[in-house]
């Protein structure tokens, strides 16, 4: 019988090792908020960061002059108590509140000027927000005036983007930061923070954990938690498991299918519309057969309702133009519907038959949409009108390389807003000469895609505000639909999943998840 002792011992050892655990630590009564997500942080430097995690980190640690209200449309004061705009939207003057940074020093106009100059001059990812900024000038300690080179009614919206969070200039400069292109303080921001927000950076371990500590010297209302831990859990199923066991309080990347599989009554799941969308993009410069008529025909070949069922199990909505539903100018736009017969007729009228194309796209899953599944649906829909689409899923790095070299005429990708405002979409997706997608689609033959009317309309929109601007953005949206370069496929719903003792969880178009509003019941 002795030989059985070893086996028994091994079994006992495993049971003992697991029994050491007991029940996992309960989330109840903890003053630490734990959030599960894929971190994918590119930087924690406000002037260089550009990612979904960055959005809510910067919002919690740095504060912007204005921010977006919970209605996701109105701008409300943040560090600025009031602001004035001149008649032609070229000068913006903000009066600052009596706020302080985490080290107790006051937030002054010189900090704001330094922050905006740095954002513009370091030429990093979010620097595009400052395109057209002529000067940021401290009028006095509490007054800051911005001048832009051309009318820009969306400037106010831009300064609600978390990347414009105000940095404590003195603290940052002491660490070697500058507001010029020579700045190399990015590494300092990975382990330190210099903001005025309700939290400070406690520690950061890439791909593992981001810890925030309550800013004890916060000038505003104290946040609901002493500590926030964002822990890296990659896939939706694992995030749901961690939520059910109480290991985490909020799971940020649960897709609707996974949400449906959650059985615990202690978990709240809300499915809400998002401002994210996936799209197909045509590149006529690679294959000139893709004329406007052909692109419009192909857009009509797509079964949009089926696409939503196929990719996100019905948890999404159609989107008309490459501007998210709910953004200025989208209210009266009508999303496309499939019309196979019309598409066939248009292709025949254009003299196109036996069309074969290649679609290169990232082999990715964004906002719950698997790009392979999405493109298989596009392939199937195109085949219904006699167009053969060869699919070429690529790693992100290879897709980027091939996109630049123009190896295929069809691609697919996704987009999420940086702030509330339709101008950012026009500045990216419109067929205005020199703009990103016009350059990508037209390459060295801009005449294939450029739409001069859009440049006029965009200038008009930036010189207007309110309903007048909305009307111009609606026209722009229709023009961009008619261009048929960018074909939005699905705007997937977002799942807010959290334990039932947590409240104040909401989705913000600028800031993703405002941490300071979250409390435990």
């Amino acid at each position, binding site marked *: 019988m*002795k*030989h059985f002792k*070893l*086996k028994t011992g*091994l079994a006992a050892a*495993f049971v003992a*090792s*697991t*029994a*050491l*655990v007991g*029940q*996992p*630590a309960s989330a109840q009564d*903890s003053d*630490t908020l*734990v959030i599960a997500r894929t971190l994918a942080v*590119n930087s924690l430097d406000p002037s260089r960061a*550009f990612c979904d995690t960055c959005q809510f980190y910067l919002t919690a640690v740095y504060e912007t002059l204005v921010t977006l209200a919970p209605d996701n449309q109105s701008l409300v004061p943040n560090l600025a108590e009031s602001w004035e705009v001149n008649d032609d939207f070229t000068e913006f003057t903000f009066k600052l509140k009596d706020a302080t940074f985490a080290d107790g020093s006051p937030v002054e106009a010189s900090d704001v000027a330094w922050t905006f100059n740095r954002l513009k001059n*370091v*030429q*990093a*990812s979010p*620097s*595009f927000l400052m395109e057209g900024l002529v000067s940021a000038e401290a009028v006095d300690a509490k007054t800051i005036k911005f001048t832009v080179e051309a009318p820009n009614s969306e400037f106010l919206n831009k300064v609600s983007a978390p990347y414009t969070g105000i940095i404590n200039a003195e603290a940052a400069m002491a660490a070697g930061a500058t507001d010029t292109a020579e700045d190399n303080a*990015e*590494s300092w921001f*990975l382990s330190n923070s210099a903001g005025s927000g309700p939290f400070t950076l406690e520690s950061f*371990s*890439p*791909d*593992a*954990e981001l810890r925030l500590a309550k800013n004890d010297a916060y000038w505003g209302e104290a946040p609901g938690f002493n500590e926030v*831990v964002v*822990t*890296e*859990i*990659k896939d939706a*199923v*694992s995030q749901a*498991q*961690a939520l*059910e*066991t109480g*290991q*985490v309080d909020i799971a940020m990347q649960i897709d609707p299918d996974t949400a449906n599989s959650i059985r615990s009554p202690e978990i709240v799941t809300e499915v809400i519309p998002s401002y994210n969308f996936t799209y197909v993009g045509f590149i006529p410069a690679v294959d000139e057969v893709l004329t406007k008529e052909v692109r419009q025909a192909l857009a009509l070949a797509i079964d949009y309702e089926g696409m939503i069922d196929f990719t996100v199990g019905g948890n999404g909505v159609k989107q008309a133009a490459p501007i998210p539903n709910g953004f200025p100018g989208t209210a009266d736009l009508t999303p496309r519907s499939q019309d196979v017969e019309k598409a066939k007729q248009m292709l025949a009228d254009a003299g196109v038959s036996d069309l074969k194309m290649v679609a290169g796209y990232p082999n990715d899953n964004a906002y719950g949409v698997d790009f392979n599944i999405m493109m298989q649906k596009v392939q199937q829909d195109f085949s219904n009108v006699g167009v053969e689409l060869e699919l070429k899923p690529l*790693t*992100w*790095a*290879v897709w*980027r*390389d091939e996109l*630049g070299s123009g190896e295929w005429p069809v691609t697919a*990708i996704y987009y999420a807003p940086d702030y509330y405002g339709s101008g950012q979409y026009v500045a*990216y997706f419109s067929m205005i000469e020199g*703009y*990103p*997608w016009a*350059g*990508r689609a037209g390459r060295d033959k801009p005449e294939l895609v450029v739409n001069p009317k859009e440049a006029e309309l965009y200038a008009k929109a930036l010189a207007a505000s309110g309903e007048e601007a909305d009307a111009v953005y609606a026209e722009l949206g229709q023009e961009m639909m008619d261009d048929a370069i960018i074909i939005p496929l699905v705007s997937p719903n977002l799942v807010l999943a959290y334990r039932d003792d947590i409240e104040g969880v909401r989705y913000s178009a600028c800031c993703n998840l405002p941490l300071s509003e979250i409390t435990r019941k």
Partner: protein
Amino acid sequence: MLAYILRRLISIPFLLLGVASVSFLLSQMTKGDPLAALVPERMMSNPEIVAAVKAEWGLDQPLPIRYVRYLGNLLQGDMGTSFSTRRPVALDIAERLPATLELVIAAMIIGTFMGLALGLLSARFRGTIVDSVARIFALLGSSLPVFWSGLILLYVLSVQLRIVPGTGRLPPRVQPPPDVTGFYTIDALLAGNFPLFLQVLSHLALPAFVLGWAVTGIITRLVRSSLVEGLSLDYARTARAKGAPERIVLIRHALPNAMIPLLTILGFTFAYLITGAVLTEAIFSWPGIGSYAVRAAASLDYPAIGGVTIVGAVAFLLANLVTDIAYAWANPRIKVH
């Protein structure tokens, strides 16, 4: 023996230089845009930003200059700065390697003990139900994909039965022990924090078991076949003829001979798992070197790719050296020169 070890150790830096050169040149030749990790898609059409980033990271320089700079920095112990994490690669590796080593060592201990025990049982009770059960367990370990067994065990033991904790090295609400070695088990003990040590062990148990199970499969089959062969040889027959019980024949005579091929497998498996435990790391949110390697490769993060390659090469070179030394120790007939 000492001279042999010294010779092998001295050769390692030269081999690493070769590995680093090949790794650098291959990654540079790989198709893909290295700016993918540095410039978001939104900004890639902005020539000013692209030029500024290229200049900042030295990607605007010709390949020979970059190569010479890379080797020069490497000789000074500088592996460069990761495109993805924006931190020194050496720091990234120093943070992640202990996590992987802790996991792999635990998995190797579990896998080796279970493999040896099952191999012994299987050989001793060859053809019986014990043999069948042990072989099926071993077969499952080596054939079930880790991503499947890991997820299922995590779901059953953590979500349903709540007898093991969730993913990660520690619960997110718990602060890690003060960093001395990077091994949470050791650091918790050094800090005199026994409850924390138990928490670390509890988090380590399941991923180490899942990874160790795969190792168990290999070892069980190897030990069983070596023992079965050994038990039919002359020395085993002689021992039996002298009246030694079967248990003694198995453990004192057959097992030592079975250890020699086992050492090779153990050394190779250990080195492989240093960078090959990526699926276990992904499922258990284990911040190790494997997941770092995958991200580096996917985003063409040249400095990180170079760093991980060097770590992998060091692991294999040292594992080979230790295996050779262990060979000589286990079998006096083998001499090292």
